[in-house]
């Protein structure tokens, strides 16, 4: 156990009360990575709630068939907004912005990231982009109706406020890029003595791999969005068929970023699972290097498969075939992780704490999502499934069942460390039931709907699809109820939770060797690092 440095009196609430400034400015102007992580958490949860609300409205629309509750144009705005908010304001920043910011420095024994002021700037870019997106809703000719994908030529011709919306996304891109830049430099330069690359926790490896995608892929989105603005304002013609432009080139540029983007979304979640599983199996992780390198492999291979979003768009046949092949290949490193997690569980001493339950749920739901991805990667099948509800079901399984549930698991795992309070663990498990049952009712039905031919982004549907839509919507409401229980539980704990100890779960990575919450400088005395991670001493584990 660590000894406090002589003369230092640790504050009971660590970084939560040790700010350089008092009050709200202590939070808004803090360059401390932990405070910035909490800022991201608070704002992202707000955006998430708004997007969930819009999703609920979309499900009500599909319940009301004759007449539908909202007109078509409104529904178009709904699915655009739901996608933009969820993707750009929640899933993309995701675990990186919240848990990466909070725990990356601590896990490698550093005091902060490499560029703390740049880190705060990243958050301000995030907020500015979000505010601009809100402004885009209420100005001009109304919110964008193009879908979050902004395909040309419709995005160039539509009268809605695409220019501002796209500019908001451009600003948000800076947040992602600068965070990636910061994390890469931090991992290279700020590891504590003894923290060799192969002694770093797997969450750090996942953040590192993700950071490279953020840095290399996001600028392509940046230029694409700028070009959409240039097209709308000046008519330069690069995506406009009337001037010789090729709309498929827009799709190429868009997906060159947006496919790697989904790996930005999932890889940190996988990293969190790699932390949770060994802790609650009380066993060292199986295949540390395989998992670490598979994160890098996913980043690399995932940059080569973007064409699978465009199989039906008019690409050349040979290009279709090659992208399909590469898509099958990229499933391999992801499966390696699943096998390694499973092998870790084997002969482990498993404790089904809330974080563990949600982590296991991640594996199950992500497996379904990933497998449906492989199915739709087959060209012949894709012709029937593209732009149907199958696709919507698929990406909700991976993005929500994957990253979303991974986020919930990480929250349950690290909440006591971040806030120094323990939540009602029984309640977290109770909330799981409606979340799990509702989720599968909601999205598995979509897989069936899509297979039956129901197109996506339609404000209404033919009567033969109605039964399935009702089941799906009911599932959505059940799941939403579960989420309310989940977050209500955590919010109550913020106010009334019992004080948590330094290591309530028996974890062995560095964050568990400092107080809960950590002091401003992360460690009063930095522990020695002289072995690989996830070594469980039976005496330490409870």
């Amino acid at each position, binding site marked *: 156990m660590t000894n406090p440095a002589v003369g230092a009196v640790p504050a009971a609430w660590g970084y939560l009360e040790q700010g350089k400034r008092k009050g709200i400015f202590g939070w808004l102007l803090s360059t401390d990575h932990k405070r910035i992580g909490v800022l991201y958490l608070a704002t992202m949860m707000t955006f998430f709630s708004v997007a969930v609300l819009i999703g609920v409205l979309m499900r009500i629309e599909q319940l009301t068939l004759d007449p539908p509750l909202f007109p078509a144009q409104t529904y178009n705005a709904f699915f655009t907004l739901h996608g933009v908010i969820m993707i750009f304001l929640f899933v993309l920043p995701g675990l990186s912005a919240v848990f990466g910011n909070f725990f990356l420095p601590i896990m490698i024994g550093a005091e902060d990231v490499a560029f703390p002021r740049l880190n705060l700037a990243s958050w301000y870019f995030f907020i500015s982009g979000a505010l601009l997106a809100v402004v885009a809703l209420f100005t001009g000719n109304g919110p964008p109706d193009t879908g979050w994908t902004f395909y040309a030529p419709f995005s160039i011709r539509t009268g809605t406020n695409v220019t501002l919306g796209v500019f908001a996304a451009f600003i948000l891109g800076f947040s992602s890029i600068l965070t990636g830049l910061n994390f890469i430099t931090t991992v290279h330069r700020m590891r504590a003595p003894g923290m060799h690359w192969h002694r770093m926790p797997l969450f750090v490896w996942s953040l590192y791999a993700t950071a490279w995608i953020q840095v290399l892929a996001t600028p392509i989105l940046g230029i694409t969005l700028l070009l959409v603005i240039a097209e709308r304002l000046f008519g330069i013609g690069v995506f406009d068929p009337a001037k010789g432009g090729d709309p*498929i080139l827009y799709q190429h540029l868009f997906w060159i970023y947006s496919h790697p983007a989904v790996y930005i979304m999932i890889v940190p979640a996988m990293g969190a699972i790699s932390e949770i599983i060994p802790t609650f199996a009380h066993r060292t992780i199986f295949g540390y290097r395989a998992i670490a390198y598979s994160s890098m492999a996913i980043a690399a291979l995932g*940059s080569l498969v973007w064409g699978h979003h465009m199989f039906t768009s008019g690409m050349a046949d040979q290009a279709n075939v090659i*992208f399909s092949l590469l898509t099958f290949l990229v499933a391999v490193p992801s499966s390696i992780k699943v096998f390694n997690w499973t092998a870790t569980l084997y002969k482990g001493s498993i404790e089904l704490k809330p974080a563990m339950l949600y982590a296991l749920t991640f594996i199950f739901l992500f497996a379904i999502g990933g497998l449906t991805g492989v199915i739709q990667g087959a060209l012949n099948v894709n012709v029937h499934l593209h732009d149907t509800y199958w696709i919507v079901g698929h990406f909700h399984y991976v993005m929500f069942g994957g990253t979303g549930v991974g986020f919930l698991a990480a929250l349950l795992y690290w909440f006591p460390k971040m806030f120094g309070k323990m939540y009602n663990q029984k309640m977290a498990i109770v909330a799981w039931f409606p979340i799990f049952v509702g989720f599968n009712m909601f999205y598995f039905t979509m897989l069936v709907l899509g297979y039956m031919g129901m197109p996506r982004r339609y404000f209404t549907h033919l009567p033969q699809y109605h039964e399935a839509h009702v089941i799906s919507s009911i599932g959505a409401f059940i799941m939403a109820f579960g989420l309310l229980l989940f977050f209500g539980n955590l919010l109550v704990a913020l106010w009334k939770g019992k004080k948590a100890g330094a290591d309530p779960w028996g974890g062995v990575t560095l964050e568990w060797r400092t107080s809960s919450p950590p002091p401003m400088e992360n460690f009063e005395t930095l522990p020695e690092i002289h072995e690989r991670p996830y070594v469980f001493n039976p005496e330490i584990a409870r």
Partner: protein
Amino acid sequence: MEQAAEHGHVLPYRTLVRVWLVLLFLTAILVIASTVYHEALSVWAMLTLTPLKAGLVFFYFMHLKYEKPFLKSMVLITIATLIIFIGLTFLDILQR
């Protein structure tokens, strides 16, 4: 961690001027090659001389030659990524 300032490699003025002269020379060749209406020649000149010029700026002006191998590989990975993006896109474009 040591607080002592680390120093980078110092390039002599002479070397910098020499690189500059080579860059000007290569530019001249490029311009001349482009006026020769032998399309293959001018295209080849552009495809070889331009990266060469860029390489000189990277290696000397930007001191990449004197940096650690890991930074050199990062530059390589970045350029390779861009080339792969162009290549895979061409896989579609060239066949339509």
